[in-house]
């Protein structure tokens, strides 16, 4: 029997309540507007260091984190601003961290790549490719150890699948049945290297087939609802049966690898980037919601304006948050008091 137009629209939105759809849309818009502001602040020298923007990939962080409970855990790599925001770290705290201020999520010690927030189980921003996959397995071990039913969600980039920690972590979570959901954000490029040039398989999710008990699937990472659906099922499986899942989200990064890199150049063409931008995740969800009568243009504009205002406030907060003083230098190296080389080795500093 042919479906009515309404049923098709409802199918596109998977019967997800309007509030949840609006929430996901807003998170994606916030992620994008936040990164636009970040780029601006970087270009004017307010933000330094390595800074990797998330523009284009919003559907992955939003769709996956939307499937979590408040007491679940999130790990990610160094492209971590959006994951932090969506997890519930305030935009003030994320922006102040980028500015290197005391009001930052990590008191200015971590910067762009190392955002942490214990209050919302945001387990960081990790800067070495692949290094956090075993850490996420360890939180899964702790959950199982205590008999809890939380879940660990761990994002990482496509380059990770070729390294040792990926396989070491996958083997352990599969063998010991740990409640970890791994999401590879396959944006096709490890910095400026096409994944096809360095990976022996095209479909990264097939890598998990080597580990019995680890379910794997590939989703359209430009469709927030597809990511949400896959992650929801994976989280349920982890929570109820303590089994890991590997999700490959096919996505695309619109900008360069970091603020130091061009959006296109020797490794990919301007035409390719422009073509991919037509498949934008934010537009795609907004259009589907408008078609289904769940969102008007005015509502969308009002939401966007609200997000822009929030981001501007975050930048003002960051600007006025105090710079860390000398007393911060040794403050968090150890739980015990620590004065470098006991002061005497630092006499001329």
């Amino acid at each position: 029997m042919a479906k009515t137009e309404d049923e098709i629209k409802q199918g596109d939105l998977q019967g997800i309540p309007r509030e949840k759809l609006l929430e996901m849309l807003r998170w994606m818009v916030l992620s994008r507007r936040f990164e636009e502001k970040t780029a601006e602040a970087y270009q004017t020298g307010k933000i330094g260091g390595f800074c990797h923007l998330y523009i284009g990939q919003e559907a992955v962080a939003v769709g996956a984190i939307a499937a979590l409970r408040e007491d679940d855990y999130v790990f990610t790599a160094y492209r971590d601003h959006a994951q932090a925001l969506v997890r519930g770290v305030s935009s003030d705290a994320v922006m102040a961290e980028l500015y290197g201020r005391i009001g930052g999520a990590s008191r200015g010690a971590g910067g762009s790549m190392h955002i942490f927030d214990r209050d919302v189980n945001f387990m960081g921003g990790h800067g070495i490719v692949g290094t956090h996959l075993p850490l996420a397995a360890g939180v899964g071990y702790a959950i199982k150890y205590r008999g809890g039913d939380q879940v660990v969600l761990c994002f990482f980039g496509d380059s990770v699948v070729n390294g040792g920690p990926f396989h070491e972590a996958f083997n352990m979570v599969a063998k010991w049945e740990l409640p970890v959901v791994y999401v590879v954000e396959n944006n096709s490029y490890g910095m400026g290297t096409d994944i096809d040039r360095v990976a022996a398989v095209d479909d990264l999710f097939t890598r998990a087939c080597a580990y019995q008990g680890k379910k794997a699937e590939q989703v359209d990472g430009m469709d927030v609802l597809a990511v949400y659906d896959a992650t929801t099922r994976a989280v349920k499986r982890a929570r109820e049966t303590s089994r890991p899942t590997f999700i490959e989200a096919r996505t695309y990064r619109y900008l360069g690898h970091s603020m130091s890199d061009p959006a296109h150049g020797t490794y990919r063409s301007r035409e390719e980037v422009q073509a991919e931008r037509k498949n934008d995740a934010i537009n795609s969800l907004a259009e589907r919601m408008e078609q289904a009568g769940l969102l008007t243009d005015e509502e969308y504009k009002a939401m966007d304006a609200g997000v822009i205002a929030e981001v501007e406030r975050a930048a003002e907060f960051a600007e006025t948050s105090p710079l860390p003083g000398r007393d911060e230098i040794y403050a968090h190296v150890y739980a015990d008091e620590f004065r470098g080389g006991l002061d005497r080795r630092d006499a001329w500093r």
Partner: protein
Amino acid sequence: MALITYREALNRALREEMRRDDRVFIMGEEVGEYDGAYKVSKGLLDEFGEMRVRDTPIAENGFAGLGVGAAMAGLRPVVEFMTWNFALLAYDAIVNSAAKMRHMSGGQFTVPIVFRGPGGSALQLAAQHSQVPDPWYANIPGLKVCTPATPADALGLLKSAIRDEDPVVFIEGELLYNVKGEVPDDEHLVPIGLADIKRVGEDVTIVTHSKMVHVALQAAEKLAAEHEVEAEVVDLRSLRPLDLDTYVASVKKTNRAVVLEEGWPVAGIGAQIVDDIQREAFDYLDAPVARVSGLDVPMHYARALEKIIVPDAEAVIRAVKHVCYLD
């Protein structure tokens, strides 16, 4: 007091701390069913079960990283490396994750973990299995480093390490497991970062740690018997924090120092100790400080050469005689 081996002391420390705190668990290659490659974890699987005594795959980076994550979530893992040579595969987990987490999270995430296992040369294990990793970790802010030489210190330091809020690298002497020593019957804790004077003397200070403490003591006895030189032997016990107060005070008393380590000379821990001594006790010195270290070469398999490469009591005696102007 009981007379037990270094191995038994470590086992006792693990058992006591696992009984005391159910967040403590151990993991590593062969720690469970096999009772440990060096039998340090003997009997623990039977008492505590698989979740707390976890046999791992041979994947050092993976299980060390898993330990770090478990510590971030509030457990207290003790990760055993079959030897510290294999821990080079976990250097990223230890240095980039464990040592940095508290700092780069602005104090939010602590990593109360112990990484332990044997280090140093043993008997003809050749280049890849005979390394002294001590200075590789002593260089890293965010880590603590313990290197016990005796059963009592092994017991007391391991218990302190397990209770510590921060990551501790615990390097045991591969040739010390069968060494016997007196150990208190009651609860015994040794603070991390406190050196210990293992022999009192007036004429020269020998600063050393781990297996070389025994070499220094041997040399000291011979120096007393044959040369009427009374050497004071300072056992560092921990390399980070490094207890400079104790060895500087000793050198101010004896006015002469020999710094002894098993590892390589360049950028070895001894270089730091000599720097502390020259800076803080320059006017007290009656002779330049002498260093005795392992030779600057990958270890040879041949026993004849291995014996030359690792410092022995004779080398220490020569150095002491030199700083005492007796040669």
